[in-house]
C-alpha cells in the first residue's frame, strides 16, 4: 500500500512534532487559566494629534461560571489640536494654557495648540456571575488618571434570560465622577485671552483675572436598557436604549472662539462656555448574521440630546474566515451629527455675548467615515495575532453660518485625515 498523498512537507511536520515531544514545553490545560488580550494601537492625524495606546486585558472564568476581567490601558498623546480660533489671512499669536509663553500660527492656517503631550493610565475591573436561575449580575469599576484629569466610575448591570435563553432583557446603571485640573487653571467663561509679552510685569495680573478656579468636576449618570433576541440559528439582534445625564463642568478649558469685526478680522479670543447640564438619549440596534461562512455585523445608533445634537452612526463589518484559521474583516463606518445649539465657528464683535458658545468643531455639524480592514491568524495552542488598519476622515460643515469679510478667503472647516493601526495578540 503506497502512501498516495504527495507528502512533501513530511520532514517539516515531523520536526515540529518531535520538537514538541523533546522540547516538551508544558502546555497548561486551559480550564482554570487566565485568557489574555494585549494590543498596541497608534492613532495619527495628519499634522495634528497622534496617540499611542497599549492595553493588556485578562479574563478568568471560575468553575461556577463567574467571570473576572481586569484591564490596564496606558496611552500617550502628542501633537497639536485646534484651539477653536478661526484661521486668518494674517499670522496670529496665542497664549499657552499655562499662561507662560506664546505660540504663533501662520497666515491661513487653522490655529493649533501644540502644548498637548499627556500620558494617561486607566484600570478597569468587572465581576460577572450568574444569580438564581436565569439572572446574571455584573458589577465593575474604572479609574483613569492623567496629568490634569482624573475619572472614577462604578457600574452595575442585571440581565434576565427568557424563553430558553433566546430573549435576554438587561438593565444597567453607571455613575462617573470626573475632575479636571488644567495647567493654568479654569478660565473665566467668555473672558478675553490675554495675549502679550508674558514677562511684562502686569501680564500675570491680567492673566489671573481670566482665571476663576484651579479645578472643576462633573458627574455622569448612565442608564442602559437592552433586549437581546435570537432570531434564528444564524441571526441575533440587540436593541439598547441608553439615557445619560451629565451635570457639572463640560467646557473645554483650552478652547477659545474668535471674536471678529465686520471684515472678519479677529479682534479678540474669548474662552468658550458650555452648559453645565446635558441629557442624552441613544437608541442602538445591532444584528449579527452568520452566512455560510462569513459573519455580518451591522449596527445603527441614533443619539439626540438637549444640546440639540442629533447623530446617526452606521457600522458594518463582514468577517471572512479562511480554512486555515486566518480571517479578514473589512469595516465601514458612517457617522453624521448636527451642530450643538451654541456652536459657532466665530462670533461677531458687536454681537451681544451669548450665554453659551463654543467653536469646537467636534460639537459642530460634522460628517465622518471610517474604512478599515482587520487580518487575523491563529498561532497554535490557542494564541492568535491580528492586525487592523483603518482610515478615518472628518468633514466639519458650516451649519449654515455665512463667512464674512476675510474669513471667506480662509478654510474655516478644515477636514481631518487619520490612520488607526493596531496589533492585537491574545494568548
Amino acid at each position, binding site marked *: 500500500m503506497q502512501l498516495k498523498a504527495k507528502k512533501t512537507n513530511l520532514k517539516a511536520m515531523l520536526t515540529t512534532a518531535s520538537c514538541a515531544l523533546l522540547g516538551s514545553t508544558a502546555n497548561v490545560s486551559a*480550564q482554570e487559566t487566565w485568557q489574555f488580550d494585549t494590543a498596541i494601537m497608534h492613532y495619527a492625524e495628519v499634522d495634528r494629534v497622534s496617540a499611542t495606546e497599549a492595553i493588556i486585558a485578562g479574563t478568568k472564568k471560575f468553575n461556577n461560571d463567574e467571570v473576572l476581567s481586569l484591564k490596564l490601558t496606558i496611552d500617550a498623546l502628542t501633537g497639536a489640536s485646534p484651539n477653536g480660533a478661526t484661521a486668518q489671512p494674517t499670522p496670529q499669536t496665542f497664549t499657552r494654557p499655562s499662561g507662560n509663553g506664546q505660540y504663533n500660527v501662520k497666515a491661513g492656517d487653522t490655529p493649533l495648540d501644540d502644548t498637548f503631550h499627556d500620558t494617561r493610565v486607566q484600570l478597569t475591573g468587572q465581576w460577572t456571575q450568574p444569580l438564581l436561575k436565569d439572572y446574571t449580575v455584573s458589577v465593575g469599576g474604572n479609574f483613569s488618571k492623567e496629568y490634569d484629569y482624573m475619572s472614577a466610575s462604578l457600574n452595575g448591570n442585571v440581565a434576565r434570560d427568557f424563553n430558553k435563553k433566546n430573549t435576554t432583557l438587561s438593565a444597567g446603571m453607571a455613575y462617573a465622577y470626573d475632575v479636571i485640573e488644567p495647567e493654568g487653571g479654569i478660565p473665566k467663561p467668555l473672558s478675553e485671552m490675554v495675549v502679550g509679552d508674558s514677562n511684562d510685569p502686569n501680564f500675570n495680573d491680567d492673566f489671573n483675572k481670566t482665571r476663576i478656579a484651579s479645578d472643576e468636576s462633573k458627574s455622569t449618570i448612565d442608564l442602559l436598557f437592552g433586549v437581546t433576541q435570537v*432570531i*434564528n440559528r444564524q441571526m441575533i439582534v440587540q436593541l439598547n436604549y441608553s439615557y445619560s445625564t451629565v451635570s457639572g463642568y463640560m467646557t473645554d478649558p483650552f478652547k477659545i472662539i474668535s471674536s471678529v469685526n465686520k471684515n472678519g478680522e479677529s479682534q479678540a479670543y474669548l474662552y468658550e462656555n458650555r452648559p453645565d447640564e446635558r441629557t442624552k438619549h441613544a437608541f442602538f*440596534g445591532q*444584528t449579527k448574521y452568520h452566512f455560510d461562512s462569513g459573519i455580518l455585523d451591522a449596527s445603527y445608533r441614533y443619539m439626540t440630546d438637549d444640546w440639540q445634537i442629533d447623530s446617526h452612526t*452606521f457600522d458594518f463589518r463582514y468577517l471572512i474566515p479562511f480554512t486555515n484559521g486566518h480571517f479578514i474583516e473589512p469595516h465601514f463606518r458612517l457617522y453624521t451629527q448636527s451642530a450643538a445649539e451654541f456652536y459657532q465657528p466665530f462670533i461677531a464683535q458687536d454681537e451681544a455675548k451669548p450665554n453659551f458658545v463654543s467653536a469646537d468643531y467636534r460639537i459642530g455639524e460634522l460628517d465622518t467615515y471610517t474604512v478599515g480592514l482587520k487580518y487575523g491568524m491563529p498561532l497554535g495552542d490557542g494564541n492568535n495575532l491580528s492586525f487592523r488598519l483603518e482610515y478615518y476622515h472628518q468633514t466639519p460643515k458650516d451649519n449654515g453660518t455665512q463667512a464674512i469679510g476675510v474669513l471667506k478667503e480662509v478654510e474655516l472647516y478644515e477636514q481631518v485625515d487619520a490612520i488607526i493601526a493596531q496589533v492585537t495578540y491574545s494568548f
Partner: protein
Amino acid sequence: MKTIAIVMTALILFITHAQAKDSTSLQYKDVIKQYKGDVIYLDFWASWCTPCRKSFPWMNKIQQKYADKNFKVISVNLDAEPNLAKQFLASTPANFTILYDPDGSLAEELQLKGMPSSFIINAEGKIVSAHVGFTDKKKVKYEQEIEQLL
C-alpha cells in the same frame, strides 16, 4: 438619512420560519427500554458547548464509581454533523454510552431548557429531576440526587 434608518430596522425585524422536523429518530421510550432497572443520568451535550466539555471527567468518574450499583451514564450528542462529535470525543475521553440525536427529536421531546441539560431517571424509567448547566456546585447536587436513588 431617514430612509436608511427605516430599512435598517426592517432588516432587524426580518423573521424566518423554523425548519420542519422528521420523527424517525430517537424517542425516550426506546432509550429507557434498553436500560430498564438502571438508575440513569441522561446528559445532552454538543461539541460547541464549552460547559459540556467540563462535565465529561465528572461523568467518567461517577460511571466508574457506581458502575456496580446498576447506574448508567447515557449522554446524547446533539451535533448536526456527527464528525464534530468525533473530534470532540477524540480529545475528551468518555467511558459511558453515547447516543446521537442529530435532528434533536429526543431533545425536543424532553423540552430542553439549555445546554448542557441533564435528567436523573430512577430505575422505573421516571424522570426524577431535570437540570441545566454544569458547575462545581451543581455537580455536587447531581451526585447527591443520584446516590439517593441507588
